[in-house]
C-alpha cells in the first residue's frame, strides 16, 4: 500500500468530501494561497476557488461564529483554527453556542461543523503556541473530540467528522503532520467511539494518542525486548465519544494502567480515563497504581532542553512501564 503523511491524508479527506458534497467548504486564516500554517490546505485554492477555500480576517470569534451560522443553515463548514491556543479567542462560539445549540433548542438544529486545529509542543513555539487543550473540550457536553495519530486514522476520522451532524473538535499535532503511514487509495471511514488496539499485550494497558502514540509503541516494543513485558497499546481515537469498554476490558486483563498524553498532567484526559477505570469493574483486577505520563504542570518553555523536559518522552514512558510492573 502507498505511504503518505498525516498532512496529505488530511488533505485527501478534505478533497474527497468537498468533491462529494458541494456544501462542504473550508474557512480559516491564511488557508488559501498560503495553504494554512502547516500546509494542510495547500493547493486547494486552485482546485476550488476563493469561495470554498475562504481566507478569513484575523477574527476567530467571527470565524467560528460564522461557520456555526453557516452550519445551521445548510452548509458544512470546516473551520481551521490555526493553533488550539487561539480557541481562547473563540471559546464562546465553540462552547456556549456550537456545543449547546441543539440541546438548548430542543433538538431543532443540526450543527455539522468541524473545527480543525492543532496543538502541542516540540517546535520551540513557547507558551502561547504549544498547548494541548483537548481536556477542556471533553468537559463540554455537545462537542465531539477527535485526536488522530496515524495518516490512516487522520483521513478516516476527518471524513467521518465532516459527515457528522455535530460540532467536532478535530485536534491535530504540529509535530505529527509529517508522520508517515499506509493509506489505501479506496475510500474508507473510521467510526467515532471505537478505540483502536494498536498493539496487543497481556501485562500492561497503555493508552496513548496523537503525537505520543509512536513513542508509546516504541516503548512497548523496547520493553518487550528488554524485559519481556507485553504492553497493550490502545489509541482511543476519539475522546468524545469515548470507547470505555475496550479499555476496561484491557485493564481487566492486564491489571495495569498507564495513560500517556502531552497535555499538562493536572486535569488532562488521563485523569478522566483513570477515573473511568477506577470506577469500573476493572478496579477489581488492578495490580498496581496508575501511571500517568504527561506534560509537567508548567507553561511550555521556549528553550529546547526545557521544552523536552516538560514534554513526555520515550524514556518517561519506559519508566512508567517499569514502574507499573514494579521493576
Amino acid at each position, binding site marked *: 500500500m502507498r505511504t503518505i503523511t498525516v498532512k496529505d491524508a488530511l488533505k485527501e479527506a478534505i478533497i474527497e468530501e468537498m468533491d462529494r458534497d458541494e456544501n462542504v467548504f473550508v474557512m480559516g486564516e491564511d488557508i488559501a494561497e498560503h495553504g494554512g500554517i502547516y500546509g494542510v490546505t495547500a493547493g486547494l485554492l486552485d482546485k476550488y476557488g476563493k469561495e470554498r477555500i475562504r481566507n478569513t480576517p484575523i477574527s476567530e470569534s467571527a470565524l467560528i461564529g*460564522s461557520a456555526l*451560522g453557516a452550519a445551521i443553515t445548510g452548509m458544512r463548514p470546516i473551520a481551521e483554527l490555526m493553533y488550539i491556543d487561539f480557541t481562547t479567542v473563540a471559546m464562546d462560539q465553540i462552547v*456556549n453556542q456550537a456545543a449547546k445549540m441543539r440541546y438548548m433548542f*430542543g433538538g*431543532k438544529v443540526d450543527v455539522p461543523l468541524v473545527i480543525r486545529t492543532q496543538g502541542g509542543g516540540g517546535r520551540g513555539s513557547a507558551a502561547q503556541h504549544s498547548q494541548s487543550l483537548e481536556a477542556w473540550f471533553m468537559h463540554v457536553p455537545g462537542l465531539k473530540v477527535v485526536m488522530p495519530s496515524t495518516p490512516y486514522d487522520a483521513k478516516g476520522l476527518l471524513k467521518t467528522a465532516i459527515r457528522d*451532524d455535530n460540532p467536532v473538535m478535530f485536534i491535530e499535532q504540529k509535530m505529527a503532520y509529517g508522520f508517515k503511514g499506509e493509506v489505501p487509495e479506496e475510500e474508507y471511514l473510521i467510526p467515532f467511539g471505537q478505540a483502536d488496539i494498536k498493539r496487543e499485550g497481556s501485562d500492561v494497558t497503555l493508552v496513548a494518542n496523537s503525537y505520543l502514540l509512536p513513542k508509546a509503541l516504541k516503548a512497548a516494543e523496547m520493553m518487550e525486548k528488554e524485559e519481556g513485558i507485553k504492553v497493550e497499546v490502545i489509541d482511543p481515537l476519539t475522546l468524545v465519544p469515548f470507547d470505555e469498554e475496550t479499555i476496561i476490558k484491557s485493564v481487566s486483563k492486564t491489571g495495569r494502567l498507564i495513560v500517556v498524553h502531552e497535555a499538562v498532567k493536572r486535569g488532562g484526559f488521563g485523569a478522566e480515563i483513570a477515573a473511568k477505570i477506577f470506577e469500573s469493574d476493572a478496579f477489581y483486577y488492578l495490580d498496581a497504581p496508575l501511571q500517568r505520563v504527561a506534560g509537567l504542570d508548567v507553561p511550555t518553555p521556549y528553550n529546547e532542553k526545557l521544552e523536552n523536559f516538560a514534554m513526555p518522552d520515550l524514556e518517561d514512558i519506559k519508566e512508567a512501564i517499569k514502574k507499573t510492573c514494579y521493576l
Partner: protein
Amino acid sequence: MERSKETLLDMYEKMYKIRLFEDNAVKLFNQGLVRGPMHVYTGEEAVAVGACSNLNNDDLITSTHRGHGHCIAKGGLVDKMAAELLAKGTGYCKGKGGSMHIADPDIGILGANGIVGAGLPIAAGSALSSKMRGTDQVTICFFGDGATNEGSFHEALNMAAIWDLPVVFVCENNLYGLTGPADEMLSVKDVASRAASYDIPGVIVDGNDVLDVYETVGEAVKRARNGGGPSLIEAKTYRIKGHFVGDPCVYRDEEEVEKWKKRCPIKNYKNYLIETAGFTSEELAEIEEKVENEVEAAVKFAKESPDPELEVVFEDVFSK
C-alpha cells in the same frame, strides 16, 4: 415603500401581541412559574416588528436575551413560546431552553441568545450561507447598545462588510446595557456612527416609530437582497420595564421612564392608523380581541401542558 393595508394591520397585530405576551410573561414570572432571568421587550415593539415586516418566511434572524419580541415579529407562535417559558414539553425547546433560548429555525429564527454579542457572528454566517447557496435570503441581526462594545460586534461587522453579506445589523439602543448607561459605556453618541469602521451605511431611526423602522430597514433589506452588502441601523428606543423582571432599576429615574412611556410605540401607531391611515377603531379592536384570545389561549395551553419526561434530559446533546 409598499405599505399595504395588510402590512399595516399585521404590524399592529404583532406589536400588540408582543406587548400582551410580555405582560403575561411578567405575570407568569411573578407567579413563580418562570425560572431564571427573563428580559421583556416592552416599549421596543416597533423595532422588531418594523424590521421583521420586511422579511419573508425563509429569511433569517438572530436574537438576544431579550428575544420574545423578535420571535413574535418573525412569526413565532405564542403558545409554544409560553409553554417554553413554563418549561413545558410542548415548548419550542421542549422546556430545555427557556426564555433566553427560544428558537424556530424552520421559520428562520436562529434563536434567542444568552451571551451578549454572540448572535452577530452567527448572523454573518447565516448570511454567508445564503450567499454561498445562492438564495436571496436576508438575515436580520438584533442586538443591544451594550452589545456594540463586545469584540464580536466588531469582528462580525468587518466580516460581513468585506464579504458583502446579506445581513442587516439592527441595534436596539435602549439607552442601557444591564445597568450601564450607553452614554457612559459607549465612546460614541450614536451607535450608527460605528458603521464608519466598516464602510457600510449607518442609519439612525426612531425605534418607537414602527413605520420609520419598517422603511429604513426595508431599504437595507432590499440592498442586502440585491447584493449590496450589510448595513447598520440604530433604533433609538427604550425599555420601559427593568433589565430583567425584578430589576430594582437603581440606575435610572422614574422621570425618564415616564417620559418614554408617553412615547409608547403602540399607542402612537394606533393613533396614526386611525387618524392618518383611515382605519377604524373597530377594525383595530377586532385585532386586539383576536390577539387577546390568542395570548390567553397560549397561556392556557402552556399551563395545561405537561412537563417534559425526565429522559428528555439525555436527548439532543448530539444529533442522531
